[in-house]
Structure formats: structure tokens, C-alpha cells
């Protein structure tokens, strides 16, 4: 079966991580520590109610399960996210709580439990400085928490606005704006009024302004933060852009504008999307396939366009719920599936092949 679209690329399966006894919902690579010699670490969370920590052995290069965080969440663990320092891991669960774990040299202990959501919490995200945390869930709300000393967390805002289940929240990589996406088919942008803890919705992207026409499952920012990509049950991927200079200058809010819609590439729900530091967008979908897209330099007359550069069919035996580029190695990717496994991949330019320009 021919997988590749562009023969300049290869996706090599490096390892399959087994251990979870139910579907794996989400993955998070521990942030790069900024010093050499520290092994790569990956967190995964599952319908089996546990979180697993996988560490790469410096000697063999293989990932091994170093810890299983169990007996805390009483239902599916849906999402996990490392704090920017790598010292904390937040895990969100269908049990309506978000647990905060402290990593003390490989030994994890739950140091706080955030309660408040009425039912399943679906996503958790730390802002760039690690001073704020956001959560969202089926109760249609988005909560913003302030990180205080001594492992205290205080809720500073409960944001209403979505009319249905909120699937994911993501903080912008450099500015304190929060984006959420929902079963109500919309994407909402939340920002603070001055420094007042007064958060409100500053923009909604929906069908009326080129938005999605079904549940939006995930979103991801590019490295510079001037673009974001969203994926949906409507079988499309959409790319949005903003005036990042204006956004960072604090000179009022700079709205997100639709740049491109990628349709016709997926025939089942796209659950996950992640933009690499090198500009490659990776999608994971319910057809068991992983796809890679990048900006096309061919025709800039109407603005940037995007093209599919590689597709790996049957990457897993069942739906893919999460894809995440490594925080440390540019060509490394992890994927998680309903089949209970996690796979580590290497995405590289095939050596010796002629590059098309």
C-alpha cells in the first residue's frame, strides 16, 4: 500500500509503548530542560484511569515506563499537561477533577486537586510562564486558575459562553490569551481586561466567519504564535492567523482571521492536531491514519496555502486520539490510540531523494 504522497519523506516506527489497559486519550512531552544529557520523558493518560510516565533510556534509546500514577482519578483521565518548568504535571479527568502532580526526581505525588467543574473535565493547559492554568469540560465552562505558592491554586474566573461541551483549551505561546474549542462547533478567544482578573470572550470563530460546521476537537499554535490550526468532526482542518506584533504590543486585541481550509483529506473525525517547531502540521484521525501538512510555497498569489506531504494509513489498529511532536527532537512524534498503545515515530526527509522545488 502506497502511503506517501511526497516521496521525499519517510515515517519510521521507532517503538510501540504498551501498558495501558484501555484506550489512550492524550500525550504530553515533558518540556526540554535546556541542558544536555537529560532523557526525553512522555506522559500518557487513559481510560484505565491511570497516567503513565515513559522515559527514554540514554543507553538504549528505548522508552520504558518509569511510573504509573494511579489510585487518584476515579474515572477516565482525559488530558495531561506539563508545567513549563517540567516540575508539575496536571491531569484532567471525567471524575470532574484536575490533579496536580509534583515530579520529585521520578517520584510523583499528587500535591493538589482542583475541583469545581460539574462533570467531565476534558482538557488542561498551562500558560507560557506557568502562572496560570485553564481547564474546560462538558459543563460548557472554561475555568482559569492562578498558581500560588505552596501548591495552592485559586480559581480566578469561570467563563461561560460556549453553549455545549468544551473539548480543549490552549494558552497562546507568548501572550496571555486562551483559546477554547467546542461541541458547539465554535472556537472562542478569551482575554483579560487589563490585569483585573476580568476575563471575557473577545472573539468567536464559528460558521458565520469561516469556522467549522461540527465539533471542533483540537487546536495548536505554530512556534511564532501568529497562526493556529484547528481540527474538527466536519472533516476539515482550518488555519487561522493574527497580527502577532499588535497582539504582543498590548495595543488592543488583534482578531484571528481565517487563512485556509484543508478539506477532502480526511474521511472521519480528526481528533488531534499539532504544529511542529519546524512548521509541519500533524493530524491524528478516526480512520487510524496520521497525516502531515506544510505550507506550500508554490503559489503565493492568494496568500499561503497548505499541502499534504505524507500520509500513514493504519498507523494504529484503531482511532488515533492524540499526536504530539517531541519537545526535544524535531523529527520525533508520538501518537496514542483506542488500541491502548502509544507509538514513537521518526519523520524524516528520505536521504538521496531528489527534492522537488
Amino acid at each position, binding site marked *: 500500500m502506497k502511503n506517501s504522497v511526497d516521496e521525499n519523506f519517510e515515517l519510521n516506527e521507532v517503538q510501540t509503548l504498551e501498558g495501558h489497559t484501555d*484506550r489512550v486519550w492524550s500525550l504530553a512531552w515533558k518540556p526540554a530542560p535546556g541542558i544536555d544529557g537529560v532523557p526525553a520523558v512522555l506522559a500518557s493518560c487513559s481510560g484505565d484511569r491511570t497516567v503513565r510516565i515513559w522515559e527514554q533510556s540514554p543507553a538504549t534509546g528505548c522508552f520504558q515506563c518509569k511510573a504509573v500514577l494511579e489510585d487518584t482519578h476515579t474515572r477516565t483521565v482525559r488530558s495531561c499537561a506539563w508545567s513549563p518548568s517540567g516540575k508539575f504535571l496536571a491531569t484532567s479527568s471525567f471524575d470532574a477533577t484536575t490533579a496536580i502532580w509534583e515530579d520529585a526526581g521520578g517520584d510523583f505525588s499528587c500535591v493538589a486537586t482542583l475541583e469545581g467543574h460539574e462533570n467531565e473535565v476534558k482538557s488542561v493547559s498551562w500558560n507560557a510562564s506557568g502562572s496560570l492554568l485553564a481547564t474546560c469540560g462538558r459543563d460548557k465552562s472554561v475555568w482559569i486558575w492562578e498558581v500560588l505558592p505552596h501548591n495552592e491554586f485559586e480559581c480566578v474566573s469561570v467563563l461561560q459562553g460556549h453553549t455545549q461541551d468544551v473539548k480543549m483549551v490552549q494558552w497562546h505561546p507568548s501572550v496571555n490569551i486562551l483559546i477554547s474549542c467546542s461541541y458547539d462547533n465554535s472556537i472562542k478567544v478569551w482575554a483579560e481586561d487589563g490585569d483585573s482578573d476580568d476575563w471575557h470572550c473577545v472573539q468567536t470563530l464559528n460558521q458565520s466567519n469561516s469556522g467549522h460546521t461540527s465539533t471542533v476537537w483540537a487546536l495548536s499554535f505554530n512556534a511564532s504564535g501568529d497562526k493556529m490550526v484547528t481540527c474538527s468532526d466536519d472533516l476539515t482542518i482550518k488555519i487561522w492567523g493574527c497580527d502577532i506584533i499588535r497582539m504582543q504590543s498590548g495595543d488592543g486585541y488583534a482578531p484571528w482571521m481565517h487563512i485556509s481550509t484543508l478539506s477532502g483529506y480526511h474521511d472521519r473525525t480528526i481528533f488531534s492536531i499539532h504544529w511542529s517547531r519546524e512548521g509541519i502540521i500533524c493530524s491524528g484521525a478516526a480512520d487510524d491514519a496520521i497525516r502531515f501538512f506544510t505550507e506550500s510555497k508554490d503559489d503565493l498569489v492568494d496568500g499561503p496555502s497548505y499541502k499534504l506531504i505524507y500520509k500513514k494509513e493504519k498507523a494504529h*489498529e484503531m482511532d488515533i486520539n492524540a499526536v504530539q511532536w517531541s519537545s526535544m527532537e524535531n523529527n520525533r512524534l508520538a501518537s496514542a490510540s483506542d488500541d491502548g498503545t502509544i507509538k514513537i515515530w521518526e519523520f524524516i526527509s528520505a536521504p538521496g531523494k531528489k527534492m522537488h522545488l
Partner: protein
Amino acid sequence: MLLQHIRDIKDPEHPYSLEELKVITEDAIEVDDKRSYVRVTFTPTVEHCSMATVIGLCLRIKLMRSLPPRYKVDIRVAPGSHASEASVNKQLNDKERVAAALENPNLVDMVDECLAPSLL
């Protein structure tokens, strides 16, 4: 023949099977074995049937237990047969909502009761 897996599922409200109530008929199931795809279309007994999502859940669970894991299953109400057709279909095909529902013990009990006769 997939019909045999689902024909005897009991309706949540009435002591009859889905087939007896004509909620499920033979042409309710479309199978594409080559692409490992199944679509089931069911007709709730009344337009405002509040049990439509429960019936849909029962169908999904039964098929999940009967089919190889590679199968993709879509469940929907027959077009025009329910007042909240789009809303019901969306819930039934949202994997995360289904997963959360199945962690609700009351709902699981209800589903198991409906599935019990079809296990014989």
C-alpha cells in the same frame, strides 16, 4: 449477518425487542466489510422518543462487542423519524460522550438490561 446481534435487544421502555417494535429492520444495517465500516439506522417508536440516545447506545455497545476492533460504526436515527434528529445523531457519534456515558453506572445498568435477552 449483523442483524442477529441486534434484533433481540430489548427496548428500554417496552417489553419487546427492537425488531418486534420495528425500531430495527433488516435494511437498517449497511456493511462495507472491505472498508470495515458499519452504519445502523434505527427508527424510534415515537418522534419525541426520549430513549433514542439509550437505544443508540445499546446498538453501539452490542456491535462493539460483536465486531472486530477494526470496524468503524456509525449510528443514526432514520431521517425524519425524530424531532431532535441532528442532536441525537451528534451525541451518538461523539466517542468521548459515549465513553463518559458508559462510566455512568445507572446508564450501564439500563444498557445491560436491554442487552440481556440478545445474549442468548
